């Protein structure tokens, strides 16, 4: 990540960031909480999960 070739890296927060990752100004995490919470809600309510992606 110290290379000039990469200006920014966007990853999800599926893995909790280690301090080196959290402190790296080039790396940002996009949250997937909405996605997971909605899928869990649908499974619990016996609703379709695949229709999340229609």
């Amino acid at each position, binding site marked *: 990540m110290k290379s000039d*070739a990469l200006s920014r890296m966007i990853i*999800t927060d599926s*893995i*909790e960031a280690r301090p080196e990752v959290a402190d790296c100004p080039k790396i940002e995490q*996009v949250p*997937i909480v909405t*996605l*997971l919470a909605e899928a*869990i809600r649908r*499974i619990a309510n016996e609703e379709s999960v695949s229709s999340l992606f229609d």
Partner: protein
Amino acid sequence: MKLIAGNSNRRLSEAISKRLATSLANADIKTFKDGEVFVEIQENVRGEDVFVIQSTSRPANDHLMELLITIDALPRASASRITAVIPYFGYARQDRKAGPRTPISAKLVANLITTAGADRVLTVDLHAGQIQGFFDIPTDNLYAVKEFERRVREIHNGGLDEVTVISPDAGGVVRARTLGKRLNDRPLAIVDKRRTSTDRQRRQKRLRLCNPWRSFRSRRSTVHEIGRIKPHDHH
């Protein structure tokens, strides 16, 4: 419904529980001094629909054992249904025999999760969708493409005309194409990565960006080399 969080990603687990207007179930998931994992669910789960949230990220084996042992405790506590929520599914890349006398660890891990007592699996952007077939229980594989799309649009809010989506290898093509389509159908490029036996000895790989832009040998990471490609390399 009960949510139980392993130790791999407490932050995400807390966020999920908040979003679902509930709290994480009290559970003690710890490692003894000899390295063994021990789990104690500290509230009643009888008849409950239980979701165990755990990424099998580094340290992959410890996190996997936490997941397996937590699941094991649940049918024994009369939970009615157990869903393993695995935001990052470790070992997924070992999904085929990469060479003679090598394992298919993704299949073994799927067997372990099922044997432990999971009734369903929920995961995100599985390395290869076919891994769902390693399970004989229902699996849901979610896609985080909308999350990436939203962020890329924020960054390029002046327009997406300069955006090309590049898949670093053949396995990522479907994901890259889906993202490109969502980004006003921007073009897709694919890195063709291969190693000959001499490359293996030299720990280098050959990369060719198919449009084609350029071809090169590298010892550095694929992502690093992609970052070095300049717009004028495009013909």
